[in-house]
């Protein structure tokens, strides 16, 4: 099966400044793919290249089996895009913008539009200039979701929505996922959202892909935090490969351990004798923080 998005070694420079530096992004048809990275990592630039708004300087990219730059117009009939910062024409109403964008894409499902207006509680009669950020985002979301397209590209679609509307968004995407006929690329900072919706995800930093895989794969990369009270000194534990941030306070130890090194580390503890043990499972938050923070180093 052709991948919906297939980008390898993508390079993009703005003048001398590199924005993307060998980025890989592979999204299988029919999956919901999370696209994460700290601010300025190159998520929006990648999306703009996928949309044929910008031309890449190196690497290869194909979108729905076509060239996003040369075949932009025909490919755009098959996708819908929600930008991170939605701006509307000040004099057009929300309803007019939804219809307009839908028709420019080649068609709009009127029943679906009515249903989504209801669920997102949007008044389509207001002028663009009077909507708040969240309501502008709803306009773009409804326009995208009520188009009959194969691919949805959503750039931080919930960043202005209230928690209630975020929930609605999650339900709607989950329904799309169950129907299984759409591919979704979801750029997001909201971990719960990613965890709830995405089959696979890609984390990028400074224009490069640093992790990609299923959530289970990535969890595997995370560390478990162990706190234990021991019968004696844990010889050789601190230097064991895969043990990090080791702290010893008399007979209490606290350390992080890579999933691969969990078994040898526990064996060491058992050898000494364990009075009490607390183990914190790996969290996605920790993974993201670790990946994001390395950007500062």
């Amino acid at each position, binding site marked *: 099966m052709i991948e919906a998005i297939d980008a390898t070694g993508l390079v993009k420079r703005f003048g001398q400044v590199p924005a993307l530096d060998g980025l890989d992004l592979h999204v299988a048809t029919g999956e919901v793919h999370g696209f994460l990275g700290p601010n300025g990592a190159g998520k929006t630039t990648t999306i703009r290249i996928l949309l044929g708004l910008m031309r890449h300087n190196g690497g290869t990219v194909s979108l729905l089996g076509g060239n996003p730059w040369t075949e932009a117009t025909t490919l*755009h009939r098959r996708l819908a895009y929600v930008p991170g910062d939605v701006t509307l024409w000040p004099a057009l109403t929300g309803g007019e913008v939804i219809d307009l964008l839908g028709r420019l894409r080649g068609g709009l499902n009127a029943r679906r539009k009515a249903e989504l207006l209801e669920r997102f509680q949007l008044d389509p009669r207001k002028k663009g200039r009077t909507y708040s950020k969240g309501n502008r985002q709803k306009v773009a979301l409804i326009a995208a979701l009520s188009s009959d397209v194969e691919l949805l590209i959503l750039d931080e679609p919930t960043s202005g929505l209230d928690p209630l509307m975020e929930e609605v968004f999650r339900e709607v995407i989950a329904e799309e996922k169950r129907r299984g006929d759409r591919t979704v690329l979801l750029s997001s900072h909201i971990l719960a959202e990613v965890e709830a919706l995405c089959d696979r995800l890609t984390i990028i930093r400074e224009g490069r892909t640093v992790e990609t895989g299923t959530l289970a794969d990535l969890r595997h990369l995370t560390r478990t935090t162990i706190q234990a009270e021991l019968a004696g000194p844990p010889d050789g534990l601190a230097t064991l490969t895969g043990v990090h941030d080791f702290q010893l306070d008399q007979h209490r130890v606290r350390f992080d351990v890579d999933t691969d090194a969990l078994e040898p580390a526990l064996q060491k503890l058992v050898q000494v004798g364990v009075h009490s043990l607390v183990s914190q499972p790996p969290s996605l938050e920790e993974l993201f923080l670790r990946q994001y923070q390395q950007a500062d180093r």
Partner: protein
Amino acid sequence: MTGTGKLIRLILRRDRVVLPLWAVLLGLIPAAYVASFEELFPTEAERVTYAQVSESNAGFVTLYGPLHGSSLGELVAWRAGFLPVLVALCALLTVIRHTRADEEAGRTELIGAAAIGRHAPLAAAFITTCAASLLLGGVLTAAMLGQGMPAEGSMAFGAEMASTGCAFAGVGAITAQLTSSARSARSIAIVALGVAFVLRVGGDVSALGNGALSWLSWLSPIGWVQHLFPYGVNNWWPAGLTLLFTVVAAIAAAVLLARRDFGAGLLPARLGPASASFGSPFALAWRLHRGLLLGWTIGFTLLGLIFGGVGGSVVDLASDNEGLGDIFARLGGSTALVDSYFAGTAGIVGLIAACYAVQATLRLRDEEQAGHAEAVLTTAVSRYTWAGTNLFFALLGPAVVLTAEGLATGLAYPQGDLGAILAGTLVQLPAVWVLAALAVLAFGLIPRLSGVAWAAPALCLLILLVGQTLQLDQWFLDLSPFTHVPHLPGGDASATPLITLTVIAAALTATGLAALHRRNIPD
């Protein structure tokens, strides 16, 4: 008003290039006229003859206002008669840029949450603009004194420009309160300036003839300041009247500001249709351009009615004034005089239409910067279709407004030849297209600097205003496409320059669109 001082410093920091540029450059222009007039008309007798011809030439009076005297200073001050319009334009744009434009962009909200008074942003913008206008007046006075001109006249001349700037800073301050968009505020303020100019023209040209409508000038701040007559009677009270107008306008703006909500205009927002009756790129472009087209059509129709209406005065003048009979006879009699008047106004109208064309073309850049282009171009609309549908209105809109102006002129001057007058207006179109095409080129090649497209109409205006007076080289005059347009009615109707200009415009547009097709959006 708390924090006004800090905001003034912020404005000075943001405008540290632009503000001194217009205040100093516009202030220096008249001094350049002094040397050129001395060279062109070295003797008293030559100046008197020139003044006699000029003061009764309706085309000149339209552009520069009334002339009452033949001294070097009076000629220079009169010839600088278009300057108040430029000063007014700079002043109102500066005020709106630092009030409504900031508010619309959300920057005022950021500042308003600090220890800043409600009226402080308006006060800071208004005070800074008035100070810049005073600087302009000071520069002008100093430059004229430096040319050895009389002191009182130089001060009156400076006061003329300074008070104009202040008055239109007030106009800008009011219009900034009316609507929630800076673009509408600018449009309303520029229309107000246009009305002031047209009233001034109507009154002054009428005064040349039977004078029945000469009171029109007194409805316009532009008319007031042109009655200072520096180096002549040095009439100071119109400057006082203008300053009074400024104070009233400033108070009105402050009252309007206090009565409205932050971010809102005075005109209430209404609900619109829940679904669209349109859904094509062309229909979208029509929605975006129709307001502009309607506004300019109304403006051009009024302009045409006034230009046509004063045509009668030009004929009266030719038949009444026996002293100038010889000169008119040599110029070809009253028909030739009327023809040259209409050909002259057609040139002005063409240049104004070019401003509309550039403005409409740069809507593409506005759409790109606002993120709207991204929304359209990620649907099944190609870049060519998107740009083409917008350019359809940018290029044909001027044709509509020029036709409206020509028809209105012809109808308001029934004794003339409607076809010839209309032809004189419509031949401007290829020159208008060249300036629009330069804007397309800038938008395609150097999008971040697309604003330089305004340099082209500015240069054409400069050539129109000072080209002949300063006896600049022909190659420089030839830079303006309007130099090449046939002078109709009356002149040679040659198709060659029109075809050449159209081909140049087409080539520039094609180059600009090709560049657009290759570049990043947004850039």
